[in-house]
């Protein structure tokens, strides 16, 4: 198993998007170990393992990933939402989690991946 810092969890029920994200991760970190889940059930199971970074869609087939995000965050995983949902629907406790709206610009994903896997916090949102 790769070091925790290189372990990336992707939760995304849209196959092509998941694949794109996975490629973007590998583009930045060819040695990264990527776990892709397309449902909440899978994600819950996978989240028991340690991860350095988690790219989470919010709405997946069988629910919302807020609980998983909380769980991961508590254990030190850098969590980033990549979602088509409204940013304001995110619960208060998860407001500090970076939010990349869909459709995303690949460079932004790449920058986020680089920052997380390098152990540095991702670029904070600097919204006016």
């Amino acid at each position, binding site marked *: 198993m790769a070091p925790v810092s290189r372990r990336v969890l992707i939760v995304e029920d*849209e196959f*092509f*998007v998941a*694949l*794109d*994200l996975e*490629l973007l991760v590998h583009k930045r970190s060819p040695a990264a170990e990527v776990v892709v889940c397309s449902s909440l059930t899978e994600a819950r199971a996978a989240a028991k393992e340690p991860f350095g970074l988690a790219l989470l869609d919010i*709405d997946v087939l069988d629910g919302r990933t807020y609980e998983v995000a909380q769980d991961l965050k508590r254990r030190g995983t850098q969590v980033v939402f990549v979602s*088509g*949902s*409204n*940013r*304001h629907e995110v619960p208060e406790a998860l407001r500090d989690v970076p939010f990349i*709206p*869909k*459709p*995303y*610009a*690949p*460079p*932004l994903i790449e*920058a986020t991946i680089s920052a997380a896997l390098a152990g540095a916090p991702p*670029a*904070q*949102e*600097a*919204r*006016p």
Partner: protein
Amino acid sequence: MSGRNSALAVPPAARPRWNEAERLAALREYGILDTPPEREFNDIIEIAALVCEAPIAVVNFVADTRQFFKAEIGLGVRETPLDVSICAHAILQDDLFVVPDTTRDPRFDCNPLVTGEPHLRFYAGALLKSPEGHALGTICVLDHKPRPGLTEKQAYTLTALARQVMTQLEYKRMNERLRQREEEVAASERQLRAILDTMPQMVWSTRPDGHHDYYNKRWYEFTGVPDGSTDGEGWNGMFHPDDQPLAWERWRHSLATGEPYEVEYRLRHHTGAYRWTLGRALPIRNGEGRIERWFGTCTDIDDQKGVQEALRRTDERLHLALNASGTVGSWLWDMASNRIYADARFAEFFGVDARTAQTVGAPVGTFIRAIHPEDRERVEASIAAAVETGGDYECEYRLVRPDGSVRWVNARGRCEHGLDGKPVRFPGVVVDITDRKCTEAELASRTAQIEVLLSTAPVAVWFTDDPQVRRVMRNSHAAALMRVPQETTASFASTDKTLNHARLRYDGAFVTPDRMPLQRAVRGENVREEEYELVFDDGTVLTLLSSSSPLRDAAGEIVGAVAISLDITARKRIEEARELLARELSHRIKNIFAVVGGLAALSARGNEAAKPFAEAFRQRLSALAQAHEYVRPHSPDSARESAGETVHGLMRLLLEPYLHEGAERFAIEGDDAPIGPKSATSLALIMHEQATNAMKYGALSVPRGRVVLTGEREGGAYRLTWREMDGPRVEGPPERKGFGTALAARSVAGQLGGSLDHDWAPGGLVMRLCVPEENLSR
């Protein structure tokens, strides 16, 4: 002593009719006791002494324990005790009392005045008798020697002098009475003046000829004229010129006939204003019925006059209206002959010959026949009841006219009973109320229509005529909505617990009764379509769209309020579902954008030449997606990224990904302007190209470089300037225009109807976009 006692015992026949107390009271009344000597009385005894040739003459009055000498000759004293008095005996006699020799009369032989000094031997006294018959005293002559008696001439003179004394006394008494009377009159006059002056009314008096000689204080206060200036006939000048002739005429009439004077006129107040005044006067007559004075009053009735005027006008109008509409007829039912006498109008109503009805009357049956068959029995019963009890009669019924038309009438009368308890007369009037009945019927039908409307339309209606809104009427919908019986008038403001199962919520907070629509309307507010939630104890929540208005009477005073509510719970649910759908759709679209972007990238995988294309494609796609999201229709519930749809807002959203790299690299300044969906996509593409190029070649390609975006609104145009700074030196326009740049230029010209120019200044690229504002908001 015994002799004197027996001497005083008077034979019953001579006993006077008066008693001693009355006699003494009468004496006191003359006020003669203890008065000084007077010439009139002295003259009288001089004459008595002279005529009777007596050395002693006296006018004496017999008081309770003494006798008082008003005048005396030859005695030298003013009074003596009664027990030595001879006159005390004399007053018990009639007229003249003569004692020829006192020593030979057992009544006086022991009298010290007889036995000792001054040795009185002869006495002759005439009685002083008041008109009422009281013996007050005597005028007498005495001698030291016995005498046979008085001559006839002497006796006559003495009794005449006695009458003369009484005349003098009477004269004095009258004078005294007169003086007292005058004093009383003066006192009562003073009291009268004081009373008149304190009266709230103006009071005046005149001589019998009408000459005013007195006004009370109030008159002068009211008119403000100097004292005495309205004496005589000056008063008439105080009246309004229009009222002077009438007042004069009435006054002259009263003076001529002695009839009471009463007239209303406008009297000039000291302020100059004329006030309506009621003037009245009555004559004061003496015992012979001759007028001695007139006493009059003026009463300020200006305040009442206004009311009276109004009443009079109303009364006149009523009369006019009744006469003009010809709706009143009257009847007199003579019970003995059982005939009804009626005026022409009444007869006409009942189809009876007018002349007959007016002159000889017509049998009751003739009139009853005209009553509508359906009403006849009821009317007859009502009449019978009035006849029986002798009470008031009132009945509304229909008449069938000779032409077959039907009229509604209201009949009112009263059956008068005679002393024997039998009905005598039954007078009354009848009024045509057909119009009113029609109005009533119309009103009833309209009310029914409204009721149907109120219960048919799915609108809850509340109504109150209570300023406290403790009593509220509601239609069936409102009752159902509130889950209360329709007949209950309880409100949220009332103290009972009828509405305890529900509460009203506005904007998330419970509403106190005073802030509820109906209460606000009662206070004059108009509530327009506010959204409330009706929350029930069982958890049900209804959404209501409520409006309310005050109800005003003709004068504009608020007399109640009405509130209506639409139950929009279902509509609300549909709206929410629609909003959910819109959000879901938006979410899907964004996902599709993401998928398409992902697909593009995956498709270019392994093909190095296609990679930049795929990259650029998906970035433009991203910009479009963001523009789409920004301007898509939002409901109030789906919060937008930034408030309003404006150029600045869109710019922030588009440049957000680049802001991640450092906030200070972008500045958005100046005027903002609203944008519409079409211009948003164009602007998104343009800005995306600018940002991409700035990242690749321009100011954003170096860490210190930055971009300033400035908006300016001017003359209906919106100018947006993109200015790059602190970037690499610009050598000039690029040799080849990229697809993105071309796309941007075409979109500005075509879709926005504006202009776009680039200035490749050495210090940094400046792009100027100029768009008519009206196109921007499309």
